[in-house]
């Protein structure tokens, strides 16, 4: 394996990992705080992508410059978070927090099914592709390897910014602390004056925005079509479990392992490329049963 190939594999792995991380981040956040494995995350991801493509197409047709695609990504992500994430938490999940976790999971599964059809009704079955954001940034050449700026620089930057930002937010701000406290014990949090309902709503919306953002950022490099959410959700699940419950740093590393594992597998042993996420997960959990960064929760006795 020469340097060029190595670099190519490395870049592929990194750009893919960045995208996966951004999507998994929202899922980890929601799971970490609310203990809900949000299957609908996949749909929010897909809708974020669809919305971006539609908005970008619309504005470009009006004659806006292609760089305009970037703010539109943010807009789509926020729209997804507020218009979909908000009501899902507010109208559905809120009613069943005292019910077993599996019911909460299934509520999101049901929402996922509904949103899958909604996507098809709104956007049809034909794939969409909208790469103006990608083209707007052009290519870079590093050690003789040409790669798109968007994938090699922008995506990782966004991922790192989100990683640092969210960690800082949760650990060092008051709201972050209140969120963590609510995570641990909803009723105890209420009894010291934390509005757990608001915390959950806020968390879910942020998580949904991140899902939408993931879709928005993915849209220039993939075609947008029915079913794209289902694949992403399984992958993000694997990242969350590998990382350890609600571990944001862990999610970054898990995403990187999966991204690099996959891209190097294509060179070394293409047959297993599809299996990489699962193999990594099984191996990691074999060694660290609580996930990469998780710690065993000892019961107080």
């Amino acid at each position, binding site marked *: 394996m020469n340097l060029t190939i190595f670099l*190519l594999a490395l870049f592929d792995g990194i750009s893919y990992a960045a995208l996966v991380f951004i999507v998994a981040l929202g899922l980890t956040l929601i799971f970490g705080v609310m203990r809900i494995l949000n299957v609908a995350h996949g749909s929010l991801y897909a809708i974020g992508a669809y919305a971006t493509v539609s908005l970008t197409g619309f504005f470009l047709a009006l004659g806006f410059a292609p760089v305009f695609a970037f703010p539109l990504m943010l807009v789509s992500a926020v729209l997804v978070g507020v218009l979909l994430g908000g009501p899902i938490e507010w109208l559905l999940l809120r009613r069943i927090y005292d019910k077993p976790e599996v019911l909460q999971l299934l509520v999101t599964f049901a929402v996922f099914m509904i949103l899958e059809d909604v996507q098809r009704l709104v956007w049809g079955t034909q*794939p969409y592709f909208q790469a103006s954001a990608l083209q707007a940034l052009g290519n870079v050449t590093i050690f003789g390897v040409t790669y798109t700026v968007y994938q090699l620089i922008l995506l990782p930057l966004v991922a790192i910014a989100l990683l640092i930002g969210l960690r800082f937010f949760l650990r060092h701000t008051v709201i972050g602390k209140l969120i963590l406290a609510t995570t641990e014990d909803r009723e105890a949090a209420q009894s010291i004056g934390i509005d757990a309902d608001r915390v959950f709503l806020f968390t879910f919306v942020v998580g949904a925005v991140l899902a939408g953002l993931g879709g928005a950022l993915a849209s220039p490099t993939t075609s947008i079509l029915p079913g794209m959410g289902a694949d992403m959700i399984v992958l993000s699940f694997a990242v969350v479990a590998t990382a350890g419950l609600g571990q944001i740093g862990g999610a970054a590393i898990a995403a990187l392992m999966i991204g690099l594992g996959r891209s190097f597998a294509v060179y070394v042993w293409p047959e297993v490329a599809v299996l990489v996420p699962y193999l990594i997960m099984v191996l990691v959990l074999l060694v660290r049963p609580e996930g990469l960064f998780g710690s065993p929760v000892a019961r107080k006795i």
Partner: protein
Amino acid sequence: ADKPAALKIGMTTFLTGPASVFGVPARDAMDIFVANLNAEGGINGVPIEVTYIDEGAGAEALTSEFRRVAQTEGAEVMLASISSGNCQTLAPLAEDLKVPNLMWDCGTQRIFEEHSYDYVFRPQGNATSEMLAAVAYLLKTHPDFETIAVVNQDYAWGRDSWDIFHTALEAMKPGVKVVGEFFPKFGAPDFSTEISRLQALRPDVVLSTSWGGDLDTFVQQAFQRGLMNTSTFVLPLAESSLERLGSSLPAGHVVGARGDHYFLHPERRDDPDFKGFMEQYKEATGDIPVYSVFHASQAFAALKTAYEKAIADNGVDWPDEDQLLAALDGLEFQGLGRTLHLREDHQGVESQLMGTSAQTGEYPFATLENIMIFDGEGLLPPVGETSTDWIKGLDASFVDGLAVETYDN
């Protein structure tokens, strides 16, 4: 038999899931054909009613529904299906239920090579004829290539089509080196890694029999990364993505259509029926039709022609089942493309259209030039022989022996 109030037929198609890129256009087209025919009074005065069954709803729902429509709703003929896996399930079921079944869009060559059926017919070609046409076109237009790599979807079609293509290539041009075989998972959102690898390998030819979003993504990304300037792409199903790919499919790449299916079919485009349908379809859906629409037209034509033939042959008002089956045997019919006929093993003989992409500016997407239409007869193994055995026995002279018409565009 007595004339029914309506001729009920059932059609399985993907209304949900990724394959709905084919399934939904086919259903839309079917609705148009049926409406047109019923407006003319139907078949011998009997209007047609179609019940659609969603293949995307999973195997249990599909088989249950297939049975319900065939048995309880009393459908006289079934049209099933798109997915090869579903064909394998439904063909024996149709045989057991004794309901005539037209396999309207499934590609696997195995069906009639491994089993024989009384009730099952395929009004179209199969993977063998489709892949051989691609090989033949490639050899005719790029006789000097030395290396090839493949990027196919990781499921039966991706695997089988490469098997056929590869075997044929080995038989007809033994020196070609396969430098890479990639089977990214079905529905993969991203092909960066495979493309990086291809950039390092620099094959002369890149084959991909992918379709739908997978093909779109692959071509778009390959285009962005400049791969399409260094390798010739052979894309046997790209006709169904032309419109969506827009300017991302540059000139000079090989495009196929699973048959002679092309909205600017050089022999058919001036035909008033053809033109009329194109307009009707455009009006109804806003799109140009893709090959599944042509396949639907062929199945519909086979059905209509068979009924008419059975009625005429037997001088009855309405044929019974045996009369219908007899009419289907060796039937000749014409959908939107060229005339087809059914062989004695019930396999259809369908011409294959291949072309090279060109960006003419006439449409906001690539159209085809240097079009060749291969006659289907030469692309299928003789009745009773399996594709694999037959293709292994072919040699370089095969390509020259094919009947083919060539058109500039």
